[in-house]
């Protein structure tokens, strides 16, 4: 796997002519979006008096038309960006990786991870990457899982269960049960006593597993079907690595160990690897976000040392 600085070099050296060309298209797309935005604003002004008493309808129409137009205007540009920038970057990270822009991790895997207790009614996603890093199988993609709610009048609304990166990798130890590591929200918002009580009485989860690393306990809460197995998986070394990983990420992270795999969900709260429209692609910060995120998620195998086969797992 290539290092971060090698990837940055690649982005600027090899992709530069492509980026310059794409950036011209970006400006074109930006101009068209602004133009349609202005037309929509004029339309709003013209029909304002009609909707005086139903402003929420006008807002609804604006959001629907705006989203549709934005998607329509950017779709060619987005697709070209993924083919010409993201795909080569992934190939450059490791040649054993494959990239498909329009598919995502399967719903089965999402549910099997047991990370989220509600079953999604809609699961979207894109940017699917799969392959092997150091002989360790890995797959990941953007995921947006949503739940539908119906009110008494039958109107439906959607809430997000999870949006971000979903990573699945083989784990280097054998186990039979489930171990789930979640961000510690109860203890950090209600304190040790009340939060601890809430955690141990969470009926939607397995038994609470108290870990013997205070720093890890502050960051995470662990539920497991087997007290010993949870500690067999989460030894002191892995706990320390997860703490370091969490510190570098700065996003909420959900981890589970089920069916001899490790599932990691990183809550970015947005669709990743989408091209910038209002900022230039040649900007260092914009470029680094693509390179860094890709490097981080594929690098998880090395970061957590999943490639070390110290145990008798064949």
């Amino acid at each position, binding site marked *: 796997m290539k290092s971060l600085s090698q990837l940055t070099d690649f982005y600027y050296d090899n992709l530069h002519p492509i980026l310059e060309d794409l950036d011209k298209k970006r400006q074109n797309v930006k101009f068209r979006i602004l133009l349609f935005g202005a037309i929509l604003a004029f339309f709003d002004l013209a029909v304002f008096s009609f909707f005086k008493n139903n402003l929420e309808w006008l807002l609804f129409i604006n959001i629907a038309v705006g989203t549709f137009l934005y998607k329509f205007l950017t779709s060619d540009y987005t697709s070209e960006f993924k083919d010409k920038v993201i795909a080569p970057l992934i190939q450059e990270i490791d040649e054993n990786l494959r990239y498909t822009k329009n598919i995502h991790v399967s719903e089965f895997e999402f549910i099997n991870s047991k990370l989220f207790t509600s079953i999604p009614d809609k699961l979207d996603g894109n940017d699917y990457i799969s392959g092997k890093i150091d002989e360790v199988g890995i797959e990941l993609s953007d995921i947006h899982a949503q739940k539908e709610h119906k009110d008494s009048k039958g109107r439906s609304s959607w809430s997000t269960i999870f949006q971000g990166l979903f990573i699945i990798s083989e784990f280097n130890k054998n186990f039979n049960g489930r171990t789930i590591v979640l961000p510690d929200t109860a203890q950090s918002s209600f304190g040790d006593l009340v939060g601890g009580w809430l955690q141990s009485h969470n009926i939607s989860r397995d038994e609470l597993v*108290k870990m013997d690393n205070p720093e890890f306990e502050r960051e995470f809460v662990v539920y497991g079907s087997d*007290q010993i*197995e949870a*500690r*067999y998986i989460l030894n002191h070394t892995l706990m320390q690595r997860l703490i370091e990983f969490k510190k570098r990420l700065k996003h909420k992270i959900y981890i589970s160990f089920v069916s001899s795999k490790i599932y990691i969900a990183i809550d970015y709260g947005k669709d990743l690897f989408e091209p910038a429209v209002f900022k230039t692609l040649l900007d260092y910060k914009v470029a680094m976000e693509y390179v860094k995120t890709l490097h981080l998620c594929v690098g998880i195998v*090395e970061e957590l040392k999943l490639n070390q086969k110290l145990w*008798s797992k064949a």
Partner: protein
Amino acid sequence: MSVSLIIIIVIAVIFVLMYNSLVGKKNQVENIFASVDTVLKKRYNLIPNLVASVQEYMKHEKSILEDITKLRSKANKPNVSDEEKIELDKKVSSALRSIMIAVENYPNLKANENVMQLQRSLNEIEEQISAARRAYNQAVTDYNNAIEMFPTNFMANFMHYNRKKVFEIVESERKNVSVKDLFEK
């Protein structure tokens, strides 16, 4: 009349809850100790094989090999108490560690397929034992807290529950990877 009845019922419910939580904690300790025992036995079963594989090379370490064989037969006797098992495990762990260090001094042994296989199995079992010990210690800590903390301490006293001993965690097990080590690769 009805107020005092309600008070009596509430007190009774509190007593039942306290009693059940203490029994639950005691049983959790016993359950986990049973699992600790299983993995410890798994390790004891490897010892004869290990001794047989290394003894013809290790002339100078004869006494350690004899010690560990003795410890094993002690552990396999019936009616060994939990405290004794914890003590024995401590001794066996340190004896095994010195054998493994000694193996490093014999190039023939280090390259031996059989010894290598045993070493891998031992490492795997050590990981399992370490996990079981940590789970046991947590269960014992919860139990000890309950019998010492107010108000369950009165109930525990009445039930004749006593403090239980935890496994001492060996320093090498507690060692974390250094951060420097993490970023070197």
